[in-house]
């Protein structure tokens, strides 16, 4: 059997089947029992095996091809002409790799910190992983929608079962917000199905549409993706969800689920409704800049570390949407490509950095059970190794050259300079604001005198935490110093996408 024919299916179904197996093994709240041990090992094996399979995806990926690779296509629902059709290109492959890379780290991070129903916890993450890979690889709109919505179920449970005090409020808000956003996307899909006779995404891209239809479809897509990104002003679910979610939930939410919104814009909005996207491009740029500047100021004022990182995520994701929608303001394909590539790199980089930041907060939270900045101070004195990691990730979050945070932001700022000086000026304020809120937080938490007795009793990272943070630190530096492999993967697809978006459908 040739695995490469079914590689994407393996990446989707292996974790889902693994998650079902964990549910079958069942829970044992005694962390030392053999059953709990077996369950953890199965969880880790499945997550690592999925990652190893995804390495096969990287090796087998052809950078020169702009089209879809690893294609699978089977009829699924005949009477609706729905296909189980999968494939990856330069836009989705890096995101799939990010997903399979982050999930094992989340499993390790939750190794023995989760004492309440660990089997269900790990099962939820594995099933979520499979569904997320499904979103990134679906080439049929209905299949995409099924994965997109199904993904909400494990996340709803992760926040609701293992979250903090206000978890019920946060998780209901998360679910209903995103559900409300995406149902209109479904209406748009069905409308396009009526026009083309199938749910094939390439059929949607080829369908001629009037400007009015394009505008309405763009708005329907916008609601789904803007909530997910999240863009100002529909971002308010995110700080609540992040604050209440358990560490692993926050990591997945920030590192991968937010990327779904950005991915949706690139995969659906831009190629299916190019004229509609152009029509609304200035509005999108304005919303992105508001996210960058205004949310940056909001982040500055936060007292809760997780909330601060959540707001910083919104600001950084503003860069992503800015990079995508600057397309029409930049003359020349090179500039447009720079903005688009910058946005994509920013998504990957933000996935690594925000995941790492939430893990750092998780390390502190496991010891002190507080996320308040004011409860900390002088952590560097008792946890020097941890402090080194935290400072590195903070620098990366602020966009320090040499870290992955710099690459994407820099590309987007250059591209916006080509478009309009003021876009670039406003976007560049993030370099100051980002540094201000991140480093100020680090200063208050990590540096200074030991603030209180609790901090004095802190113990430094254990081997498990060290491994997770070291892997992330390594990848942040790798992408920062040598982004070429990542960018090469995307280039061909992005060039082709820009060409496609440039052709009006009217």
């Amino acid at each position, binding site marked *: 059997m040739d695995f490469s024919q079914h590689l994407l299916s393996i990446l989707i179904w292996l974790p889902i089947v693994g998650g079902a197996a964990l549910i079958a093994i069942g829970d044992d709240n005694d962390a030392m029992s053999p059953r709990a041990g077996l369950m953890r090992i199965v969880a880790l094996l499945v997550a690592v095996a999925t990652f190893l399979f995804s390495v096969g995806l990287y090796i087998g990926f052809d950078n020169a091809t702009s089209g879809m690779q690893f294609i699978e296509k089977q009829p699924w629902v005949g009477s609706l002409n729905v296909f189980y059709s999968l494939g990856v290109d330069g836009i989705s492959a890096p995101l799939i790799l990010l997903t399979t890379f982050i999930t094992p780290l989340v499993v390790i991070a939750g190794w023995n910190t989760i004492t309440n129903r660990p089997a269900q916890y790990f099962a939820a993450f594995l099933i979520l992983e499979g569904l997320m890979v499904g979103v990134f690889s679906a080439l049929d709109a209905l299949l995409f929608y099924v994965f997109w919505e199904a993904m909400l179920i494990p996340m709803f449970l992760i926040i609701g079962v293992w979250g903090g005090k206000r978890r*019920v409020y946060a998780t209901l808000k998360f679910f209903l917000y995103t559900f409300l956003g995406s149902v209109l996307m479904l*209406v748009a899909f069905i409308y396009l199905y009526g026009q083309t006779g199938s749910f094939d995404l390439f059929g949607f891209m080829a369908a001629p549409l009037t400007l009015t239809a394009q505008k309405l479809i763009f708005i329907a897509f916008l609601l789904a993706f803007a909530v997910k990104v999240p863009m100002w002003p529909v971002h308010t679910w995110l700080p609540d969800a992040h604050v209440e979610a358990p560490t692993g939930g926050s990591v997945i939410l920030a590192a991968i689920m937010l990327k779904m919104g950005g991915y949706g814009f690139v995969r659906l909005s831009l190629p299916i409704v190019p004229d509609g996207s152009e029509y609304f491009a200035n509005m999108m740029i304005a919303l992105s800049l508001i996210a960058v500047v205004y949310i940056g100021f909001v982040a500055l004022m936060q007292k809760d570390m997780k909330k601060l990182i959540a707001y910083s995520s919104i600001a950084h994701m503003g860069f992503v949407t800015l990079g995508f929608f600057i397309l029409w303001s930049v003359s020349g394909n090179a500039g447009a490509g720079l903005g688009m590539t910058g946005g994509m790199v920013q998504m990957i980089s933000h996935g690594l950095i925000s995941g790492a930041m939430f893990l750092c907060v998780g390390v502190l939270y496991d010891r002190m059970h507080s996320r308040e900045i004011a409860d900390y101070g002088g952590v560097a004195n008792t946890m020097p190794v941890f402090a080194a990691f935290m400072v590195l990730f903070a620098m990366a979050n602020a966009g320090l050259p040499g870290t992955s945070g710099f690459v994407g932001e820099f590309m987007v700022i250059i591209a916006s300079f080509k478009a309009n000086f003021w876009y670039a000026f406003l976007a560049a304020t993030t370099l100051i604001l980002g540094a201000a809120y991140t480093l100020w937080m680090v200063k208050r938490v990590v540096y200074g005198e030991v603030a209180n007795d609790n901090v004095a009793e802190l113990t430094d990272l254990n081997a498990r935490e060290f491994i997770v943070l070291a892997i992330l630190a390594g990848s942040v530096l790798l992408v920062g110093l040598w982004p070429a492999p990542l960018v090469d993967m995307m280039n061909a697809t992005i060039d082709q996408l820009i060409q496609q978006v440039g052709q009006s459908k009217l």
Partner: protein
Amino acid sequence: MDWKDYIVAAPEIVLLGLICLVLIVDLFTDDEHRVRTFWVSILALIGMLLVLEGTGSATRAVIFSGSYVSDPLSQVLKISAVIFVGIAFLYSRDYLRSNEIHKGEFYLIGLIGLLGMMIMMSANSMLTMYLGLETLALSLYALVAIDRNSVTSAEAAMKYFVLGAIASGCLLYGISWVYGVTGSLQFHEIAAAIRMDPTLNSLPLWFGLAFLIVGIGFKFGAVPFHMWLPDVYQGARTPVTLYIASAPKLAALALFLRILGDGLGGLHETWAGMILVIAVLSLLVGNFVAIAQSNIKRMLGYSTIAHVGFILLALFCGTEQGNAAALFYTLTYIVAAAGAFGMIILLSRRGYDAENLVDFKGLNARSPWFALMMMFLMFSMAGVPPFVGFFAKLNVISAVIDSGYTALAVLMVLASVVGAYYYLRVIWYMYFEEAEDKAVIQAGTDTRLVLSLNSVAVLVLGIVPGWLMALCIQILG
């Protein structure tokens, strides 16, 4: 009339014979061995499946001077009804026994109700339809009152009976007007009369039509004829609620498709407007009022009203696609509804009904498996993929958009978001809250097994929905 007619109508005739058999068996059974009646009833239903399998044909046969029809639609509806009545019986035995209302009448009346449903499904004339409807309705009134010591059951039965009698009266009045105008009671002759003489399509016929829609709306439980539904769902003992919530919905669908489709299809433009109003009202009232409920049976009652809104919106299109979507929706919805009421039966025990939402608190700690099953059912009802409820909604929305009502589709999906809230609340109680009631689940193995299969079915049907959709399109195409 020749003897072959009796073979076509064999399912109803055999069922009537089997009902007599069950009655006789029950007569010679004492309370100790009441389970015999149960087993004979189950065997009778299995026998019915064989008879239906044997008499089914792909062609349409109209017999008994045009008052009875056998076609693929009636065949599929009857098989489904038999299966769902069987499922209701399987869920009920344990509950009835532990609550000391294990009477033979439950199965007997349940089977008579099934006979009524089957007559409705095969009706080709207004009077056959009315006969079946009354057989079903009287059985249901009696079933609701089966626990004669319960005040709430008696009250619910009384309310159901009085309102049901009014609705039947309206239906009969409407039938008389249609008969007066078109000169026939048979659906195909009514349709032909309207086609031949377009002047019939005027006020007198519309007047009759309005009364017919009152009767149909009552059977479905559509707003504003829904008053009975929450009270009956709450007041009846849970197995009875399960029975009412499942198979009779198929009979209501047959009522709609036969009268408004086969008979008065030519008046689509006239009735579509009326159906639209009651469908949208059902959607909104059902979803919003369900949020305020603390009794889960009542909540599921209002949720039924909202689902009926979806079914009526599919039928409102009047297209083959819409009718197929309505059939698919009804079939898959009652799978989930049977499971949800089965879950209430599972959590109940002697003298105690787990009918409040708070009874579901902490179910994940008491039984992770059944919490998972209930989660499947709730997400399916909310229309979240990959569960089958999503494909049901998808079909209906697709039919509505194809008929050119995109704005209506937007309203439908927004109403689903409102609906999602109260289904999520059940999951929230099960997973995020501590149990108030830590008692061990006492239900028997049979209830557990049927419930597990039933709930897994909503996931499996969601992953492979194609064959059922194709079947629905085939029989209504």
